[in-house]
């Protein structure tokens, strides 16, 4: 305890041996993932804080992505030197969690905790795992973390020390 949590590599490296032991956060792949995450968070904050005032009521915008995009383009016109391309929009659009993953999470979590946890996992999936690993491996990560939080696997990992300090 006094020395903090002992570092045994990334927690992921204990779980997936094929993931490189130490993820270099200065690597261009990681940097671009973080930049994309920040871009999406910034766009979301722009929207949430009401700067896109002509986009209409919040619920309408959530249900109608195209209106949000148009409003974003207008709002960002001062900062963006070119119109948003499809690639830009793909980055801004939150990645969708595969239905199977959400179904698995609902099986693993008690009903009263499902709503908030689905949203937490969606946030982690769209903001971190997809930019970092791509959609396919992000789904694998999703499934792994759902399984990891189950009582049996948690107990096994702690009992056998497979997760290092985790």
């Amino acid at each position: 305890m006094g020395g903090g949590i002992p570092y045994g590599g990334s927690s992921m490296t204990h779980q997936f041996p094929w993931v490189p032991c130490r993820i270099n956060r200065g690597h261009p792949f990681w940097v671009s993932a973080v930049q994309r995450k920040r871009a999406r968070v910034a766009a979301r904050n722009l929207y949430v804080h009401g700067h896109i005032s002509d986009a209409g009521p919040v619920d309408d915008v959530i249900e109608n992505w195209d209106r949000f995009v148009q409003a974003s383009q207008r709002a960002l016109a001062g900062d963006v030197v070119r119109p948003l391309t499809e690639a830009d929009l793909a980055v801004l659009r939150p990645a969708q969690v595969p239905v199977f993953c959400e179904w698995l999470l609902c099986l693993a979590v008690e009903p009263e905790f499902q709503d908030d946890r689905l949203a937490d996992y969606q946030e982690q999936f769209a903001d971190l795992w997809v930019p970092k690993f791509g959609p396919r491996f992000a789904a694998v990560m999703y499934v792994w973390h759902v399984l990891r939080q189950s009582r049996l696997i948690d107990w096994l990992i702690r009992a056998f020390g497979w997760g290092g300090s985790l």
Partner: protein
Amino acid sequence: MGRKGLGEFETSVLLAIVSLQGRGYGVTIADEIERRTGKPVSFGAVYATLDRLQKKGLISSELGEPTPERGGKPKRFYRIEAPGERALREAQTAVERMWAGVSPTGAVA
């Protein structure tokens, strides 16, 4: 609390909850632990630990307001309870007692 004290990761999660002052939910708690320790943490492990701590009665949780950016789903904010504070104090005391008069180089005062 049970007969066993806090585990190392449980202590980290509790400290993150305390530092976020009742505004910590799963994602921010994981981020806070990563930020403070500088090491990646497993998202699933954070939830497993939160569930365990809540079952032990060390923390409690309440749902926040649903927000549109989360698709109308609320956040679950975690807060430390009196037994949790007691457990943290005990853990701190135990560590301080172990370190008393000892330096990392092995010299004993």
